[in-house]
């Protein structure tokens, strides 16, 4: 399973247009980023955990894919706890470290917020096939086909770049220049990769043009990309979670808008 050919399944979530997943994730993130309080984030997170049952992921896959978020969130939390803006009672102080009532609250809010934004984004995107996303971006969002398809085709080269990098590394050892100057070697290797990438890119562009890419006719799409009931429903769910989080937060008086 690679980025280009993600897991396929039968659940509804796999059939939903990636554009709807993108929209739902952006909507949720956009609203949650407006405030720094722990109530809105906690409410959103609670709703999300219920919804994750329909995300088409096994518990193991869920844990594995979201691991970076689980690491990032508490790390950011602890940093905020130690160095965050001091306010209220001081619990512990040591040099620059200043754990206060205010920084504790901020730390919890930060941790919950990263989870509330990060987890659904990861979960929604694990089931996105880049080809379907490109179809959606071009047909539903109406982004220019040249740009979307160029990006999609370029994505396929990433695997080749990894192989190139490995070969460049071995070749430098073989050429007798791998003993010293690691930084300089890294830079020259990065430059070599850049040169190879540009070559691969221009070859790919020729191959695409040879298949009529950029021809002055209206392009058709072999795979229809539609935005129907279940797509609207998913965006609706995202909106509902966001509104509920804001509502509870405002009602409990903890709404704390970053813009004011």
């Amino acid at each position: 399973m690679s980025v280009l050919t993600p897991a396929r399944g039968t659940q509804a979530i796999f059939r939903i247009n990636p554009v709807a997943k993108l929209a739902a994730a952006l909507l949720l993130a956009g609203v949650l980023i407006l405030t720094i309080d722990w109530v809105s984030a906690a409410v959103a997170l609670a709703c999300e955990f219920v919804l994750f049952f329909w995300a088409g992921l096994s518990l193991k896959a869920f844990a594995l894919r979201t691991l970076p978020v689980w690491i990032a969130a508490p790390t950011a939390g602890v940093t905020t706890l130690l160095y965050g803006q001091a306010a209220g009672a001081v619990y512990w102080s040591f040099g620059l470290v200043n754990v206060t009532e205010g920084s504790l609250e901020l730390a919890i809010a930060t941790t919950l917020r990263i989870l509330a934004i990060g987890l659904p984004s990861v979960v929604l995107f694990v089931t996105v096939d880049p080809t379907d996303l490109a179809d959606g971006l071009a047909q539903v969002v109406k982004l220019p086909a040249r740009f979307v398809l160029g990006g999609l085709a370029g994505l396929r080269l990433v695997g080749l770049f990894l192989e190139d990098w490995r070969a460049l590394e071995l070749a430098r050892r073989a050429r007798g220049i791998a003993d010293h100057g690691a930084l300089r070697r890294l830079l020259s290797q990065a430059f070599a990769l850049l040169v190879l990438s540009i070559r691969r890119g221009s070859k790919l562009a020729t191959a695409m043009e040879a298949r009529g890419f950029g021809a002055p006719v209206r392009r058709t799409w072999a795979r229809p990309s539609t935005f129907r009931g279940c797509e609207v429903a998913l965006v609706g769910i995202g909106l509902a979670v966001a509104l509920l989080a804001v509502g509870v937060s405002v009602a409990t008086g903890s709404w704390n808008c970053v813009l004011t």
Partner: protein
Amino acid sequence: MTPAAAASVLGASVVARGWGWRHAGRRGWAVDGLDLRIEPGERVLLLGASGAGKSTLLHALAGVLGGDEEGEQRGQLLVNGAEPTAARGQAGLLLQDPDSQVILARVGDDVAFGCENLGVPREEIWRRVHDALDMVGLHLPLSHPTSALSGGQKQRLALAGVLAMRPGLLLLDEPTANLDPAGVLDVRDSVARVLEHSEATFIVIEHRVAVWQNLVNRVIVLDAAGGVLADGHPDEVLTRQGERLAAAGVWVPGRGSGLASSRGGTHPASAPGSVPLLRTPGLAIARTRTEVIARDIDLTVHAGTALAVTGPNGAGKSTLALTLAGLLKPAGGAVLASPEFAAGADAEPIRWKSRQLLTRIGTVFQSPEHQFVAATVRAELAVGPRALTQPEAAVNARVDEVLQRLRLDHLAEANPFTLSGGEKRRLSVGTVLATQPRLLVLDEPTFGQDLRTWREIVVLLDELLLEGTAVVAVSHDTDFVAALFEREYRLTGQAGPGVTPRAAVSR
């Protein structure tokens, strides 16, 4: 494509009148003064020395040469009476490199890509996709990942993508140069099947003439000096121009490689007194730490002998070569250098310092570009001797010697990346020879090379063997193996515990 559907596509005509093309920033014309007429439905093999502008002509016919910023055109080139760029999709072009022609992640989508660009209605697209895949004999589910295809399959996929566009002019630019023998036959057979059912005009570039000889009814030889050198029926042209073509690097059937089989087994394989350099007791090889490809490999490499590593794609030939070369870590067993070969270094080459490898094992990678690290050919050759901290005078003397031996002296100040394929190959061999290693490891040294470079590589390796250098080479090229190698180690590609690769040792 059903025969009827294919027949509905009429062949396109090609006309060139004093046509020429000069790439931007170059002084010379890639093609010049070309006068040519190809009738609809003709099957043409396009030959010529490297640099005669064959690829340029094919790219121009496909309309992908680019606009004014890419180069300058003079004269006239017409497909069906119109400028090639004006009628995209009329000509379908299949290129050499399988990896750079896969565009999308799934087989079906990739074939459909060209049709989409030409605005073919959706239902019609999928009908064409099925027909085209049938035609090239690629019987795979439409959702099959393109990354899991072999080189030959990728070329057939690209051919299907081209056929789905229903071109009146089918252009193939060395479509089999990067394939193993099985892949070459696959692609050739697919094309043969297509031609049986199609009226499309067909032009193929290939310097291994035998592959296509029976599928074409006309051979056109481009002159490197401009214009056409020879034009006519294949047998006639190949007989009349055979010698000239062979000198220009074309593999003309029945002429052989032009080399007296200097070695081919007559060499003292492990003659008495021949020094063992490496042995591999119970060696297992792996690309990554977990994925063992082959195990129980027991080999000994002697000074002055040649060992060929052969086998199908994916069997781990390159991995074995890189492991022997002290670049990859064995997954099991060991690669051991004899005390005499190690000369003070550790017994295992993988533990050697990068600099210690230089005088002991030289590795020539499959793609020369991976091993270039300098801005000029001269500096490239000096990298190894400098790393050995040789005095400047000795470095210069050695570089001059290698430049001459590999006929690169006129290119000393050129950038390695701007060289032709054959020159790049010679330079990559040269960078290794500069430090005079006792063992040479080469990965597909003759891949995609024309006859001229091929011959040079064989002669050079033959000389090195006589001087006592050991050679280990990965190769699909049976002529190459027959010309130089007294031993062949065949990897079967069946990994897994207990499966021992059969060592077909022939003398």
